[in-house]
């Protein structure tokens, strides 16, 4: 077990490195991933939303906006733990250099995941501000969204990191995004509720991190209920349980 449990001290230095790089690149990196959910909000919320007035008595824009906060965070995490990690691990071989210091594989993975979840909180928070400016937030509980969105981002990061650690070639990401991320984005209850769909749709969605993030975000935007705790627990337990998988896979790859 000692080779799986990360050292917070060393993991923090990996976070520090990633944060330093982000502090130089954030202007270029933030904008596209931020515009994406904004387009969805405008096209669907203010376009389609004029035809679909309400969902279950809720204004469609109020229904849509919180889910987009959760998805903005998810996309940020998905990109960070796929392409960015892949390049550091396999192309620039940066991890070989880090592993030649006292930092170990589990510290790198933990540091990368922690950073990815911070990054998803940044993207989620920026979009929260935008949504609030449109007047689509109706509860002060929404102030708790950044850490909650970070948790959703963490869970997404572990899943993406696992994929990255296992794939032999970068081309396989097209499967990850087309068969994994995009359907999850469309069928996690961001755009329409599960009420009119067959029962299995929500069951499948329940097994994805984004579904729980969306439920949390929507609840916090209007005033939460106790169910939020269940979703939080789901994300925390799944993140913790899956952590060993990328650690083992990265070690097999980098320290054979």
């Amino acid at each position, binding site marked *: 077990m000692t080779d799986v449990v990360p050292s917070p*001290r*060393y993991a923090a*230095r990996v976070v*520090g*490195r990633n944060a*330093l*790089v982000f502090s*130089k*690149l954030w202007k270029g990196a933030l904008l596209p991933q931020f515009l994406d959910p904004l387009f969805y909000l405008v096209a669907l919320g203010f376009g389609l939303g004029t035809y679909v007035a309400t969902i279950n008595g809720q204004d469609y824009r109020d229904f849509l906006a919180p889910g987009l906060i959760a998805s903005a965070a998810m996309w940020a995490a998905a990109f960070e733990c796929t392409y960015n990690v892949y390049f550091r691990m396999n192309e*620039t*071989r*940066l991890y*070989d*250099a*880090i*592993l*030649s*210091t*006292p*930092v*170990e594989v589990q510290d790198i993975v933990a540091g990368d995941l922690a950073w990815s979840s911070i990054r998803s909180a940044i993207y989620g928070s920026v979009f929260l501000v935008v949504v609030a400016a449109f007047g689509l937030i109706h509860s002060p509980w929404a102030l708790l969204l950044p850490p909650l969105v970070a948790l959703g981002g963490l869970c997404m990061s572990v899943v993406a990191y696992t994929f990255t650690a296992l794939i032999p070639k970068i081309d396989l990401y097209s499967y990850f995004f087309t068969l994994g991320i995009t359907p999850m984005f469309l069928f996690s209850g961001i755009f329409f509720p599960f009420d009119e769909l067959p029962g299995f749709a929500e069951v499948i969605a329940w097994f994805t991190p984004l579904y729980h993030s969306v439920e949390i975000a929507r609840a916090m935007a209007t005033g939460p209920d106790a169910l939020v705790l269940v979703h939080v627990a789901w994300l925390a337990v799944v993140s913790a349980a899956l952590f060993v998988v990328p650690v083992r896979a990265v070690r097999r790859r*980098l*320290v*054979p």
Partner: protein
Amino acid sequence: MPDQAAVAARSLRKAYGERVAVDGVDFEVPPATCFGFLGPNGAGKTTTMKMIYGLAMVGGGELQVLGLDARSQRRRIKSRLGVVPQETNLDGDLSVLENLLVQASYFGIERDTAEARARELLDFTRLADRFEDQIVSLSGGMKRRLLVARALINEPDMVVLDEPTTGLDPQARLAVWRSLESLKRRGVTLLLTTHYMEEAARLCDRLVIMDEGRIVAEGEPATLVREHVGREVLELRVADECDAQELVASLDGRLEGHDFTEDALMLYAPDAEELLEAIDQERYPTESALVRRATLEDVFLRLTGRSLRE
């Protein structure tokens, strides 16, 4: 513990699946010396190095690095090592100075100390005026020197260098050699792999020659040359009609050894000039003859063969 070996390997082994990369090697690296690993590609040099600096798990046998067990004390070992890898793996998102500062952070070195040391190392590797530059703008030689600087940021007791000068021009190689020699004078143990025999002869106090995962020779460079080749070499290109086998037989008693290569005959003797005069040119016509000192290259080629390995 001044006399303790910097590295001690006993029956060290490593296999990747079916392929055996290191097949039971024993060696000891004395502290404060430069120790070399020579061998053709695929001989097991890099794998041996990686087990020492923690990028490959020890497969079998024993490996002690700086008196610590390589299996169980990885963090402690790595905190006292500097590594110059074969492939350049600088952090391309960071500047020259930041590369050193971030590396220092992984060792837990305080910011002020790190900054002072980084400046000193940039002076030492003559990169001081490039400290703000991005990595992409550096030449191959500068990147190598920065890798050396990065390996020294934690003031290591031992520096491991995997082909430190491969691909460099002669001036850049000389610069790397000088910095390594100056490290050696300060008492840092150096461990290096190389394909360049003159590099090994110049830098290494002791070396091993590896082939197919095993050590085939070990010793001081000059001793190895004397033992395996002799003092001088007569390199002959014989004419088609000359029977080389018979020529060698006719020189019996004068030779310390000989090798047939694809296009030449190598004769090893204490005095190659004298040997050349002794050859009966009427019976054994030669196209060209070269008299020279025996080098490590002769030892290397004698022990590992002359044919291409990959």
